[in-house]
């Protein structure tokens, strides 16, 4: 059996374990051991600000995705099978469109001469085009759009497992619909909330394409710090240290979450 799994394992070891290990090594070794790169990451303003901004954006994206995703998952769960399949297909439709294509679509929608600005001017609601993109706003709008399916699917999967009887029992004991929702349904759906939030937050921490294309150069997320240190400044040690800190943050989050729910649930394979 080990022989069967070894080709796949070899590919993973050579192309992800070795490269990440290389990054870790490079972050502490440059003509001798040094913690200089980490000192820079933790003390220099540019790095601090970028990490803080990335966590803020990820938190905002996660909360917005939860606010938008929960009602949708709830509705899909409460409708007959045919309708819920339709809703889930519509959620998955953008999921299978390239992230790059969707970034382009948001540029087309949000830019100064874009669809939304033209529409608002046509309605005479605004006289000057709104700055909807090349800033943090545009980044968040497009990022939530890309990550929303990762919120809706675990939510829906969890809600599906909540027995209807419980709500009926609540109602028959005299609880109002809102009381049964808040006291019975909501608490039982929390594992799905945690799974969805974890996935969205973690994916957002490492997001690259949307902040790069829609952030207008001012929204420097950690991923852009990594790529700029490699491509523009040839600061391989610093890039590696940033990457290692980012990876450790992600692993720490997965570790903490795994104490509450099974990671299989987060990764979407029950």
């Amino acid at each position: 059996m080990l022989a069967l799994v070894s080709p796949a394992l070899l590919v993973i070891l050579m192309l992800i374990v070795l490269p990440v290990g290389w990054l870790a090594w490079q972050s502490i070794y440059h003509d001798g051991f040094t913690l200089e790169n980490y000192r820079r990451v933790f003390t220099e303003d540019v790095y601090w600000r970028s990490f803080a901004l990335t966590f803020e954006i990820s938190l905002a994206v996660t909360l917005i995705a939860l606010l938008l995703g929960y009602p949708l998952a709830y509705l899909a769960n409460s409708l007959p099978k045919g309708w819920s399949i339709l809703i889930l297909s519509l959620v998955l439709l953008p999921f299978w469109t390239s992230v790059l294509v969707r970034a382009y679509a948001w540029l087309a929608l949000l830019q100064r001469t874009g669809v939304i600005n033209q529409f608002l001017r046509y309605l005479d609601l605004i006289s000057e085009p709104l700055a909807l993109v090349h800033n943090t706003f545009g980044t968040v709008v497009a990022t939530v759009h890309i990550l929303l399916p990762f919120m809706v699917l675990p939510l829906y999967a969890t809600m599906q497992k909540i027995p209807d009887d419980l709500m009926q029992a609540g109602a028959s004991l005299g609880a109002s619909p809102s009381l049964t929702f808040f006291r019975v349904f909501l608490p039982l759906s929390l594992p799905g909330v945690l799974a969805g939030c974890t996935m969205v937050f973690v994916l957002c921490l490492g997001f690259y394409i949307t902040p790069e294309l829609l952030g207008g150069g001012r929204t420097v997320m950690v991923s852009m710090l990594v790529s700029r240190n490699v491509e523009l400044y040839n600061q391989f040690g610093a890039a590696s240290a940033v990457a290692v800190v980012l990876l450790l943050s992600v692993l720490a989050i997965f570790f903490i979450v795994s104490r509450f729910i099974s990671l299989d649930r987060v990764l979407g394979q029950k």
Partner: protein
Amino acid sequence: MMRASPARIVLFVVSALVLVYLILPVLIIAPISFSSARFLTFPPPSFSLRWYQQYVSNPAWMQATRVTLTVALLTVLIATPLGVAAAYAISQSKLRLMRLIHMTLLLPLVVPIIITAVGIFFVYARVGLVATMPGLVLANVMLGLPYVLISVLAGLQSFDPAQEMVARSLGMNRLRSFFAVTLPQIKSSVVAGGIFAFISAMDETIVALFISGGQYQPLTKRMFTALRDEIDPTIAAISTLMTAASFLLVLLATSRQGKKT
């Protein structure tokens, strides 16, 4: 359950708006790609295929398209057998070590892709794989493996291993019984896994940004570079074609899965 309470109406309205938010950007690309205007105007002034002509007549875009299709095809041909073999081994073995191996094989889903991309770039720079076809294919095999693995493991879960035992007790060897008994029954999950690996390779951008170059740049890398400079509707044409290809493939994959269950 279906009372039209105020709360329920709010729920419907909010959900409808969220669905519009999800779908609109996917649908907006096609009309832009068929517009005759040089700059974005909506609704488009008149119908035209000029951006598609521009795409087809540009040698750089055509070369990039060939690279993307070759990489995606080779990725499927390599990642599918590797993923099927690994999934079979994982589902059959009860070793504790296998659990660890399973988690390791899912690493590409866990490690932020930007980190993977930079790491591969450093390793490739050492061994001379930057801006080569084999380098690009290998990276995409790694990224596509988890999709094959997850899909095939799900297929194997609903397969009764006792059937294979029967075939072997009747004298077939393990390999023959796998191909004669097991594989036909998990075929649809294998095909679906392969299709997902294809889409993953076709859409992959970030690793390609770091490791591809010269004549071996896939479509996504050229699109990314073009998007940073100016918004050319040719990209809308390419995006529309890519999206259509993805949807056709997903339909193919899910309809096959549907047939089975």
